[in-house]
């Protein structure tokens, strides 16, 4: 394959673009917005080239680049995409212009700094998805925290500083332990290169003792579980979402949370299969609790943005459940659900942001009967809510269906309670919809609100089209992700894993109910 610099360009184009913004006068808001949008659109266009050049049947890392970076310990600039990361990259480049458009008018303080932060964030997120070197991955993973921290802390709402600090401390706690685990893994394998470590593990060249594997898995998993966030580590999320500006919420829900589930799929499962199998029942329980708990808490929220935030806890629970069902269909569904959630929850945050721009509140009781003054926004809101609730023909259905059917095959007792979450999500979304949009207009000042303008139309149509397309044309996506998800299961095979399990089984049998 010819060397390609597309991924490097994709990663660093937004960062380079900030230079253009630095050259503009700080108070030239209009041009700052336009340039930022232009950069993000070019970025999106370039990312579509990935699909064109992507070989769908291959599980290999494509568009790979490999350069020496730090000689000792050996660290390389190694990037590439496979079916797992391909669409996550595109989701990022898609949501960034949406986020820029969504903050077109609502951001009027320190505008230049805002768009610079947003673009730096995009660089960080893309870097996370394409890194194939553990060190490089960690670098992007951490660096991306700072722009998100600033987005929440500088441009957020009233309790923004509390939320920002909570967000960053939670994430750092997880990630620093992951760093320790990465270095430990390096001490054992002599490499930071993910494919290389992977092949050494599969070939049996490097073996992890069970205790080591459990500890390493736990360290990686904790970092990712905080990011997802998995119940009971989710408490930073509602605060961060509620206080973040619209753009922050879009990126946070749309892509940042996916970094957690992506990490599980990329690192936890293939590197530590034995530990993953042992932890799976507990993880599944937490995921199911998250699904139901998130939905129930979402139901009683009085703040619309908090409601959407809790719905994320619920939806991401599905994804984690799908991943830990160890079924190719469920994993496919989980991957698809990551994209779905990015698009539909992103769209929900866009819509909530639009309401906030008009009324400067997220409280449901401040709304009511909004369908009369805002018919267009109401229609799109319904459409997106249904997508999020998993209506067939729309995107959410495909993901949830794949996850539940895949999980059911392996663990029927996991799938049954999880399915309740689907019903609950319809309840809280439609109930909220009813309270906000249906009936008589309850507040006088809501009567005169202006409906969507051209910019808002553009954003909403783009998202709605994508939602519909992902609902109908899901094959176009799953066709490209299938080889890579199957590959994950190939990588989970270990020559010694069976021996270990067999040895354990034999050692356990003489003592009934012995040590575990």
């Amino acid at each position, binding site marked *: 394959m010819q060397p390609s610099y597309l991924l490097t360009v994709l990663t660093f184009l937004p960062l380079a673009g900030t230079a253009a913004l630095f050259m503009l006068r700080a108070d030239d808001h209009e041009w700052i917005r336009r340039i930022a949008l232009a950069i993000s659109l070019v970025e999106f266009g370039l990312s579509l080239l990935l699909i064109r050049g992507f070989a769908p049947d291959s599980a290999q890392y494509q568009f790979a680049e490999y350069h020496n970076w730090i*000689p*000792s310990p050996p660290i390389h600039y190694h990037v590439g995409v496979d079916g797992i990361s391909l669409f996550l990259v595109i989701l990022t480049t898609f949501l960034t212009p949406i986020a820029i458009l969504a903050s077109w008018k609502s951001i009027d303080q*320190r505008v230049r700094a805002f768009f610079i932060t947003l673009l730096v964030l995009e660089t960080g997120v893309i870097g996370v998805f394409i890194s194939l070197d553990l060190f490089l991955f960690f670098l992007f993973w*951490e*660096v991306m925290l*700072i722009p998100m921290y600033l987005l929440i802390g500088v441009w957020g709402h009233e309790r923004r500083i509390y939320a920002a600090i909570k967000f960053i401390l939670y994430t750092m706690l997880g990630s*620093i332990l992951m760093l320790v685990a990465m270095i430990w893994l390096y001490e054992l394998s002599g490499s930071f290169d993910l494919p290389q470590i992977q092949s050494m593990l599969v070939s049996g060249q490097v073996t992890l003792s069970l205790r080591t594997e459990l500890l390493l898995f736990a360290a990686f998993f904790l970092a990712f579980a905080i990011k997802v966030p998995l119940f009971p580590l989710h408490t930073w999320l509602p605060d961060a979402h509620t206080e973040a500006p619209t753009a922050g919420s879009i990126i946070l829900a749309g892509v940042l949370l996916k970094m957690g589930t992506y990490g599980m799929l990329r690192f936890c499962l293939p590197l530590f299969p034995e530990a993953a199998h042992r932890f799976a029942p507990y993880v599944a329980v937490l995921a199911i609790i998250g699904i139901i708990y998130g939905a129930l808490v979402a139901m009683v929220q009085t703040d619309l943005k908090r409601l959407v935030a809790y719905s994320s806890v619920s939806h991401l629970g599905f994804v984690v459940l799908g991943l830990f069902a160890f079924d190719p269909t469920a994993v496919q569904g989980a991957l698809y659900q990551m994209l779905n959630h990015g698009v539909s929850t992103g769209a929900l945050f866009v819509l909530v942001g639009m309401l906030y721009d008009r009324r400067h509140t997220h409280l449901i009781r401040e709304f009511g009967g909004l369908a009369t003054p805002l018919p267009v926004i109401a229609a799109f809101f319904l459409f997106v809510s249904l997508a999020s609730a998993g209506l067939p023909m729309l995107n959410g259905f495909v993901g949830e269906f794949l996850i539940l059917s895949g999980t059911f095959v392996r663990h029927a007792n996991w799938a049954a309670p999880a399915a309740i979450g689907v019903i609950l999500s319809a309840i809280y979304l439609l109930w909220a919809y009813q309270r906000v949009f249906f009936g008589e207009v309850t507040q006088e000042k809501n009567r005169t609100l202006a409906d969507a303008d051209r910019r808002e139309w553009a954003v909403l149509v783009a998202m709605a089209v994508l939602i519909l397309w992902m609902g109908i044309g899901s094959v176009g996506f799953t066709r490209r992700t299938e080889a890579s998800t199957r590959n994950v299961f190939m990588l989970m095979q270990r020559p010694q894993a069976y021996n270990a399990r067999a040895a354990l089984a034999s050692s356990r049998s003489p003592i009934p109910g012995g040590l575990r």
Partner: protein
Amino acid sequence: MFPPREDILRLLPEIILCLSGILLMLVEPFLTRARRNVLVTLAALGSGLALVSTIYPATLPGTAFSGLLRIDGFSVFVHVVVEAVAFLVVIGSADYLDREHIQHGEYYALILFATAGMGVMASAAELMTAFVGLETSSISTYILASYRRDVPRSNESALKYFLLGSFATAFFLYGVALVYGATGTTQLARMTFPATPGGERLLDLGLALMLVGLAFKVAAAPFQLWTPDVYEGAPAPITALMASGPKAAAFALLLRILASVSAAGTFWFWALWISAALTMFVGNLAAVAQSNVKRMLAYSSISHAGYMLVALAAAAASDQVELGVAAVLYYLAVYALMKLGAFILVSQLGGESERHMEIDDFRGLAVRQPVAAACFALFLLSLLGLPVTAGFLGKFYIFNAALASRLVWLAVLLAINSVIASFYYLRVIVVMYMREPNQTWPPVPMPWAVTFVLSVAAAGTFYLGLFPGRVMALATQAALSLPGR
């Protein structure tokens, strides 16, 4: 009896430092008040020349002065660090001294003398020489700490530093005496076996006392109590010097003893382990509660000593000291850069007589002085250990050394401490970026000298954070150049 030419060249940096110090004091009486800027030029030239002249020891490794000094990659590395620190502190001090009306030649001379002492510590192959270096650098810094003569706090700082520091030096000296009694030598290279019967215990005791003395100098718990008061009271540029230079030299001495004396490795290991854990927690937990920037940075420098002690413990735990030693050396360079940048920046932003040293005084700095705020944020993030900045790679190498020696729990403690630390570093960023400005005073100007120092520190922070290869190779070479046990 004149020493051979090579030996002179091997000591050239120290000679240049001392001579330019003397020259400074001789020149001063001939200068009018208006011409005082000649002083800083001379001092900068002196320290710069000393820095350049390390090329001689670098090309002439070996022992000098009948085995008193050992010039190797290790000593050269530490020399470069402490001399670069002196150079930057000299340049960064000029405007501060003008503002405080204490522009005198002896200030610079003392910095240069102190640096010469640190240089001797770094290359001492023998404990009495090390002691002379330690005293030279300590006494100069005692005086410098009290340099704001009219400020009671500065006097308090110096007195505290002097009293406790003398105690610590006495400990060190007593330790040297005991070690001498046990082994019959003060030469590090020959200190392997106790010479007298029952000497093991004497040797252990001596080593313990030496560790106490040096732990005081690096501000390791439980000997860290002086640090916040002294750092707060001393003139801010001197705080920058104290936090980076003497600490580097004391660590160098610790490392050299650790690498050369096998008894030190086994005997010190648990002491280092416990002290590392304690130092990290004490420094970080106390820093969380500070409202004064200088005090916060002082506690943070305690915690950083703890991080370096982790690598030291790693070096003590394994037969291969290189990983740990190289990690410490790299961290010393990184740490000197970021701490120096932070303190020099604070010294400038503090305004006349360091009035604005509360964290709250930095409110809205990002709006008022975006470049200064960005610079400070960079140093803070580097101290925190965020990737892309030097602090991250420094910490990364420490983790690497610790895990290579299988010190998993110490590594986990280090990780937990990094998270605690991020709280107070980020709080300053919160204040600068997320709060509305409330200052009534005008923005502080950034003179070119300060700008120069900050640019060097910032560029270094990025360089060492992105391309550690070359410096790390030097640090590894330096570590390998130490005589094995």
